[in-house]
């Protein structure tokens, strides 16, 4: 399987909206890659996610997931391949215990009981929540809740996982915890990851960044290519990366650092070079 997601000229409008939420969106995500989808609030990011797993049906254009064109016939097969983790961990629990909750999706798919028990256990081990199997989801921390939500998805053995601002309601420690977990899972289970995010650190770790602006693809590039937009990033839905902020502050004082994007390590080295050649 070469491409996890192949979207061509996708257009989608909400009923009664004056302009389309997505317009002529085309891109291809090779299997196994990590993509960050960025854009300001209302740019169409979540609408895009819902078009990928068939929660919304495109007005025109095509969506192909794991080699299958998305149609009424394939939508259930495609949903089995794509798991979405949403923003608010409190909105996605149905089970009375952590294990029940993880099993819910499998029950829906009529997975035999023996296999279900194994898969629930394996999924909880994968997210390091096996000790919490009999606990009540409501009593967990935000990071732990998102772990359980991810376990529910892992148990279904998807090819693609979509994070829809899945870390935005967590504290910094919880945020790191979830990103590290997804990185691990991606390696172990060769997952393709699509992460809708405003978090610059999360976007920095992606293979590619797709920038949406008013429902259109504005740019696709590596994080370094996107980050060199500097202060304009704020209008595009991301924070300005810290090295760019410091470069600006230095430029105001007449010191010009090398053009192009530098990460923190690169900037530290460049500053040290200046220091050493004083």
């Amino acid at each position, binding site marked *: 399987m070469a491409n996890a997601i192949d979207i061509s000229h996708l257009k989608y409008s909400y009923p009664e909206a004056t302009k389309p939420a997505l317009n002529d969106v085309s891109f291809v995500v090779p299997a196994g890659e990590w993509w960050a989808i960025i854009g*300001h*609030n209302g740019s169409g990011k979540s609408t895009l996610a819902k078009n990928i797993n068939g929660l919304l049906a495109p007005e025109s254009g095509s969506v192909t997931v794991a080699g299958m064109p998305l149609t009424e016939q394939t939508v259930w097969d495609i949903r089995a391949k794509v798991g979405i983790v949403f923003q608010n961990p409190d909105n996605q629990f149905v089970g009375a215990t952590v294990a029940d909750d993880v099993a819910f999706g499998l029950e829906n798919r009529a997975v035999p009981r023996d296999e279900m028990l194994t898969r629930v256990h394996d999924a909880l081990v994968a997210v390091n929540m096996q000790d919490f199997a009999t606990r009540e989801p409501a009593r967990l*921390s935000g990071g732990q809740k998102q772990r359980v939500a991810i376990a529910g998805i892992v148990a279904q053995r998807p090819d693609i996982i979509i994070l829809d601002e899945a870390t935005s309601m967590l504290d910094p420690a919880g945020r790191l915890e979830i990103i590290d977990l997804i990185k691990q899972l991606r390696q172990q289970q060769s997952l393709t990851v699509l992460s809708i995010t405003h978090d610059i650190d999360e976007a920095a770790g992606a293979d590619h960044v797709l920038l949406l602006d008013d429902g259109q693809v504005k740019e696709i590039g590596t994080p370094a290519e996107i980050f060199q937009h500097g202060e304009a990033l*704020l*209008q595009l839905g991301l924070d300005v990366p810290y090295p760019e902020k*410091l470069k600006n502050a230095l430029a105001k004082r007449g010191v010009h650092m090398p053009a192009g994007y530098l990460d923190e390590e690169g900037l*530290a080295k460049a500053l040290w070079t200046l220091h050493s050649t004083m």
Partner: protein
Amino acid sequence: MDITFDHVSFTYQAGTPFAGDGLKDISTTIKGGDYTAIIGHTGSGKSTLLQHLNALLKPTSGTVTIGDREITPETNNKNLKPLRQKVGMVFQFAENQLFEQTVERDIAFGPMNFGVPEKDAKALAAQMVKLVGLPDDILQQSPFDLSGGQMRRVAIAGVLAMQPEILVLDEPTAGLDPAGRLEMMTMFKKLHDEQGLTIVLVTHQMDDVADYADRVLVMEHGALVRQGTPREIFADPDWLRQKQLGLPKTTAFAERLQKLGFTFDQMPLTASELADDLMPQIGGGDRG
């Protein structure tokens, strides 16, 4: 108007087998006119502390003095209204509290509840909408047709319409995009600088603490473990890491530069402070 905590402890579900410590022996003063940040790991007691600022919770022992009003374990729940008017609370995801048919009625609801005549309350609504940076014509719209960021501003306007002296903000920018976050934080700074509002901010964003706060309270396991200026608090990175708290981006980057051999008399908190500190060390300024 100051708020003073004198040996305040609070126990959840006191006297039951489920009793749990919420606050342990807190003594501090939040000075009128200050911008105070409260930081601490999830579950450290920040929200419990906030709820003592307008007597939503009463101490299990100790005294909270809010202006000239003393709140003790024996205080009864009557006559707390004037207090609640003076201390405005903006809870997390404040937009969830909107309920009226129009923005105007939603903002006017609070003041009318406190006895302000309808006409005056509507005038207040118009004034507050401006203060939070929304256009006038939004007043007659349904709050539910607005974007998330606008809805949150309406909710904040509703709190401001009660003309509080102290504005308490519990993670007010959670879930907003970076541009929305910056706008919101700039708005609070203006309210503090221009309207003289006392601000109490609970946050996980250490950059906001460095950029805006005069004082910082650090909570852990229900106790106040340190208080000081942002500079004093962020001067001890190892201690903060122990408490699972981060550093402002500038301070973290300065630490990295220190390891390379740069020196700082005191740890910088903002990009422009760091740029100033770096100038003499990278031959800036005298190169022309």
